[in-house]
C-alpha cells in the first residue's frame, strides 16, 4: 500500500467542493478519507446526510475510539477537535479553538501525520483562513504527500494561498485532485 489514509481540510466554499469531489469518487475507492470542514458549533451535522446522497462512498460522523476503515469517509462531530491515534483510531478533544476553529484542520493533520507518516495524503481546499497550513507542513515533514487546491479554482482562495507557502507536492484544480486520488487508489490496489 502506498497510502493508508487521506486527510482533507476545507472551510468557506466547502459544501460545493465536497459535493463535487464526492460525486466523482467511485464506489470502490478504498483509501479512508477524514475531512475537517469548518462548521457551526451548533450544527447537528445534517449536511453529512445531504452529502451522502450525492456520494458513492459511505460518509459518517466519527465515533470516539472508532477504528478507521477502508472505503469510509469520516467527519468530526460539531464543536470537537478530531485526532488520530497511532493505533489508527479516533479521539476527540474540546481544547481551545485553533485558528478560531473547533474542529481545526491543523489538529487533525498534525495527529494524522504522526499516525500515518509517509502513508498519508494531505489536502487543503477552498477556505478563508489559514487553518491547515501548519498541519500540511507537518505532513510534508513526515514524508506524506501534500496537495493544495489551485487558488484560481477555489471558491475562496485565502486558505489554499496560505497552504502553498509550505511548498506542496501538487497545486491542482479540484477535478485534477480527484483524478490524482483515483490514480493513487488504483496504484494502492495493484501494490498491496
Amino acid at each position, binding site marked *: 500500500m502506498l497510502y493508508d489514509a487521506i486527510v482533507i481540510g476545507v472551510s468557506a466554499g466547502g459544501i460545493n467542493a465536497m459535493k463535487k469531489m464526492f460525486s466523482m469518487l467511485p464506489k470502490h475507492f478504498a483509501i479512508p478519507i477524514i475531512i475537517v470542514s469548518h462548521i457551526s458549533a451548533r450544527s447537528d451535522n445534517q449536511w453529512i446526510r445531504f452529502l451522502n446522497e450525492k456520494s458513492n462512498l459511505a460518509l459518517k460522523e466519527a*465515533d*470516539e*475510539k472508532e477504528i478507521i476503515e477502508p472505503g469510509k469517509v469520516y467527519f468530526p*462531530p460539531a464543536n*470537537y477537535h478530531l*485526532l*488520530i*491515534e*497511532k493505533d489508527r483510531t479516533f*479521539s*476527540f*478533544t*474540546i*481544547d*481551545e479553538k485553533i485558528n478560531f476553529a473547533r474542529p481545526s484542520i491543523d*489538529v487533525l493533520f*498534525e*495527529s494524522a501525520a*504522526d*499516525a500515518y507518516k509517509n502513508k498519508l495524503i494531505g489536502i487543503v481546499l477552498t477556505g478563508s483562513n489559514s487553518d491547515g497550513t501548519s498541519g500540511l507542513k*507537518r505532513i510534508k*515533514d513526515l514524508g506524506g504527500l501534500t496537495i493544495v487546491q489551485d487558488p484560481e479554482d477555489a471558491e475562496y482562495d485565502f486558505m489554499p494561498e496560505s497552504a502553498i507557502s509550505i511548498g506542496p507536492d501538487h497545486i491542482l484544480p479540484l477535478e485534477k485532485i480527484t483524478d490524482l486520488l483515483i490514480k493513487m487508489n488504483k496504484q494502492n490496489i495493484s501494490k498491496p
Partner: protein
Amino acid sequence: MNNRKPIDTHQLHLQINPAEILDILYQKYGYDFRQYSEAHIKRRLYNRMLMSGIKDVSQMKGRIMNDELFAADLMHELSITVTEMFRDPKFYKSLRENVIPILKTYPFIKIWHAGCSTGEEAYSMAILLKEEGLYDRSTIYATDFNQQALNHAKEGIYPNELIKEYTTNYQLAGGKESFSTYYSSNYGHVIMHQSLKNNIVWANHNLVTDSVFAEVHLILCRNVMIYFDKNLQNKVQNLFHESLVKGGILCLGTKESLRFTDLYDQYLELDKTQRIYKKKY
C-alpha cells in the same frame, strides 16, 4: 550564542515520546496521565515546549524534574478546562424532561459533577434545580483534580463576553427566567449569585487515582473520559457504577458512550442521543 539558535520544531516534535515524560510526571509528582490518549497529550507537550522556549526533550525532562512550579503548570495544561454554561443545550433540556421527574421522588438529592473544571456546568445544574424547585434539598459535589480550575469555579466569576453565548444556551436549554437574574455584572465580568453557591461543595478529587467518596443519585461526567484510553474509561465507569444508588442516573458527554465499556448492560438508556443512562435495580 547557542541559545539564540531558533528551535528546530521538526526535530523537537520527532523527539517527543509522551510515555517517557508522563512517567517522570507520575514518578516524581504522582500526576497520572499515563492512560490518556496519546495524540492529545503529545500536542499539549509540544505546545508547552514551544511556549517555554525548550529546545529538546532532555531539557524538558530536566525542567520537570527540577522545577515544581513548571510541573504543576504542565499538569494543569494537560487537563482540559474548556467548558460552557449549559454546554449542549439539548442535553439540559433532556435532563429537565427525563431526569428531574426521577429526582423529584427523592427527599434529598446528591449530585456528583465529576470533572467540573471551572464550574460553568455545576452552576448550570444549580440553576436548573432552582427552577424545578429542587435546589434546597440538593447537594452538588463538584470535583476536579485541577486545583486552579476549582478555585476559579468557587469564585464563579466569568468574563462578560461569554455571557451572550451562555444566554443563548440557557434559552435553548428551556430556561424559565431571564438568565441575567443569576449573576451580577461588574468591571467586564459577571459573578454568579451566592444563592447558587450555597449547596455546591467544591472538592479536589482525581478520577484516576481516588476512589468512591459518596453515594449519589446523579452523576455528570461530560467530556472528561474522551481523553482516557479504554482501560481507564472502564476503571472510571466502575467507580461511577459503585457510587450510584440503584436507579441512579449517569450523564456522559454527547460523544461519549457506555456502549464499548464493560458496564453497558448494567444500565438502561434513558436518552440515547444525549447519553443519559439509568443504573439497573
